[in-house]
């Protein structure tokens, strides 16, 4: 049996599945039940300053996007940080950590960008016995209007400054949670590293409006006829999160900085993908909110089965294994040539590939009077669109042309050498190949 135990910035947990800072981790009752269900760790719902807690709206705080059969694909929220008193949260954190010493308990914090604010809260958190802290520089709604959350996360200098305070005033490992609402995710990651962060976690939620009520002309979710952008999460955001994680993992300046991967993790496979792209563990929010805490059982069994099948003895065996394969477009092999192939036995003759290629691509699929669809090799540019719109999995595949084979489209034989844009004759900046 594969060993799922995980050690992230020195914090041990029986598996790499943590609950992200959000409603599932907002109180002792939830966290205890989460641990009983099998979660490896939690990042407690973000704590704010001492004093009167924040207030939430009293109408809907969620909007959603669904796929077929009303499968929840994307969730949007306008919830703020915890609205329970600081001392209640701290007391509960302490009790839970005491009762579950083998689970990771990390505390998320968001206080104003003032040294004193951080200096005062850190000892209180440290006193709970929590394993570490996560700095919430990501919340994109409400708190950002008050100069916190993503308002900090969008200014690398602030990130570096606050991270430094945290390292200075606490002995706990510091994880900096990044906002995706920024053009280049590497900048805040570098700033976190410069400030001494032990790790970054990402992504927090993405600015979003899930829909508009066309009778009242109000954005959704709607509070008394008005709406405000919320933060988007769930399966829909996973591709964005994967890309951002990979950018940090392969950036020479931040390469090796531990990453906690967040965003749309719903199954064991999602988790494995984040980890292959460099995340040391993953955090989950929407999947738990959609299916309940029990969903972690599938993540545990699935990851462990996959690891057994692939011979990965521990999670460290595959973390980061896909990072070397993420590269810039300019380094992709232009001599790698494929053609679409339609399996006539599997084809159900819906014609979607034809519509897609004929109307929007390269007119490379022919259609006969009796609905036989075939690829025209002399037109196919291998874009893969037909594969993606085909409703039958595995019906259309991309076949690689072997070196020496004729590419009917260009009339040239496939070269066996790797060659990319940097040396391509059409590239005005091409460097001549080394003599």
């Amino acid at each position, binding site marked *: 049996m594969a060993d799922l135990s995980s050690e992230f910035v020195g914090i041990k947990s029986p598996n790499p599945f943590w609950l992200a800072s959000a409603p599932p981790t907002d109180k002792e009752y939830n966290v205890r039940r989460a641990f009983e269900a099998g979660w490896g760790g939690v990042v407690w719902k973000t704590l704010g300053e001492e004093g009167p807690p924040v207030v939430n709206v009293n109408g809907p705080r969620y909007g959603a996007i669904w796929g077929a*059969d009303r*499968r929840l694909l994307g969730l949007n929220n306008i919830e703020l940080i915890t609205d329970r008193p600081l001392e209640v949260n701290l007391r509960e954190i302490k009790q839970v950590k005491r009762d579950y010493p083998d689970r990771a308990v990390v505390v998320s914090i968001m206080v104003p960008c003032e040294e004193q604010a951080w200096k005062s809260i850190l000892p209180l958190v440290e006193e709970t016995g929590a394993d570490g802290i996560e700095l919430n520089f990501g919340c994109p709604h409400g708190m950002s209007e008050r100069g916190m959350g993503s308002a900090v996360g969008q200014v690398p200098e602030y990130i570096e400054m606050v991270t430094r305070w945290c390292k200075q005033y606490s002995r706990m490992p510091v994880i900096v949670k990044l906002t995706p609402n920024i053009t280049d995710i590497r900048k805040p990651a570098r700033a976190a590293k410069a400030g001494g962060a032990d790790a970054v976690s990402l992504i927090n939620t993405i600015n979003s409006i899930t829909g508009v009520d066309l009778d009242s002309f109000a954005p959704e979710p709607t509070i008394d006829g008005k709406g405000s952008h919320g933060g988007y999460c769930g399966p829909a955001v996973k591709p964005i999160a994967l890309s951002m994680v990979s950018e940090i993992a392969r950036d020479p300046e931040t390469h090796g900085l531990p990453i906690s991967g967040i965003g749309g993790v719903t*199954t*064991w*496979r999602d988790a494995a993908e984040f980890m292959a792209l460099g995340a040391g563990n993953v955090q989950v929010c929407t999947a738990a909110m959609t*299916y*309940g805490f*029990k*969903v972690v*059982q*599938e993540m545990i*069994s*699935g990851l*462990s*089965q*996959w690891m057994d099948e692939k011979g990965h003895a521990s999670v460290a065996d595959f973390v980061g294994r896909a990072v070397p394969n993420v590269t810039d477009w300019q380094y992709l092999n232009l001599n790698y040539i494929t053609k679409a192939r339609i399996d006539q036995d599997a084809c159900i003759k819906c014609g979607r590939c034809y519509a897609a290629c004929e109307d929007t691509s390269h007119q490379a699929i022919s259609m006969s009077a009796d609905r036989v669809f075939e690829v025209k090799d002399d037109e196919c540019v291998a874009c893969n669109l037909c594969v993606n719109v085909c409703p*039958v*999995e595995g019906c259309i595949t991309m076949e690689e042309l072997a070196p020496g084979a004729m590419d009917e489209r260009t009339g040239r034989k496939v070269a066996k050498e790797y060659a990319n844009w940097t040396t391509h004759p059409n590239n005005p900046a091409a460097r001549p190949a080394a003599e």
Partner: protein
Amino acid sequence: MGHSPFTPGVAAGRLPSEAMTRNFGDLHPPLDAHEATVAADRCYFCHDAPCMTACPTSIDIPLFIRQIATGTPEAAAKTIFDQNILGGMCARVCPTETLCEEVCVREVAEGKPVEIGRLQRYATDKLMAKNSHPFSRAAATGKRVAVVGAGPAGLSCAHRLAMKGHDVVIFDARTKPGGLNEYGIASYKSVDDFAQKEVDWLLQIGGIEVRQGQALGNGLSLDALVAEYDAVFLGIGLAGVNALRAEGEEVENVADAVDFIAELRQARDLGALPVGRNVVVIGGGMTAVDAAVQSKLLGAENVTIVYRRGQDRMAASGYEQDLAASKGVRIMTHAMPVKVIGNGAVREVEFEYTEDGPGGLTGTGERFTLPADQLFRAIGQKLDGAPEGLALDGGKIKVSGAGRTSVAKVWAGGDCATGGDDLTVTAVAEGRDAAEDIHASLS
């Protein structure tokens, strides 16, 4: 050869062999990977799921379906086997329409349940095809337990005990293990010798010795087992059958449906198995339906089930009745047999119509006859050969808690014991729970 459904009397080979093979193929063909994904995607992963409560073995159905949906059918199979080591057979034979699928929220809402049974088969087939056994034994306890009966109850009990580190000896009266999985279940529910394959796979856990041809009451006594072993589990099923009590039933070609089915299950060549042109089956349960349907599939021209009460009282589910009807079996209700007519062998059966009155079921006096070359009795099985000294209740071994009988160190479960329906899955649950109780009492 050369026979057809119209050949008079009782004859073998009424159908060409291809037709026979088709008829006795899988009733529900296995799902392929794509079908399984589509079927699994329909599950809502309900909280405290009704299907799980409805399953006598409490399989974590939402979890195993999610494991299929995420591409790990082997993990799904493990989830199933954790609760039900005969999950492969149950996937084939459970009347899901009255168990898990009946209460699926999508059945209730849309009349179209998640196909739990077929998904269970998909997962268990995947793991069993690898022929590896997903469980291992705990450290040896040095305790020895005797299990009598190698049916679902006995096998499930033995496996759980072996897993806990006890050594188990199974004693079974017949020549092959499996109980009714091997001798009773309709052929088209368990094709390709699945029952024996499943037993072989189950025994891979180790620590279980099976002794066939050893009957309690015939050379083997409960007292001796109690003296020799640390505990005894009885899973002997219902070896006896109820009598018909119709005049003249001693003639040829009148038989117990269970014997006909056992013969059919053991036949190497179904083309050599004789069946009547006109077959009459008396009874209203699963056994009656199975005997009738399989007679039809062997090529009988006319097959009639005659049940003495109304259709709503039949023990066979609506689904089973529809299956019979779809195969061309006629179901007659409110009629009871009074006389078997025939010189040497059955030729006709005379019935009397019945009505339910305040004083119970009575004949109306009106009679009719049905031509019959073969008559099968399927009016229920009963406990036969229960060891002396065990308290009985309603003709079954009386148990309390997890299968505790009135005698110390002796547990019982499955069809032979009180409680639960007479179903494969119930027998598995009772065997498993008794094993847990035995384990607790031994440690």
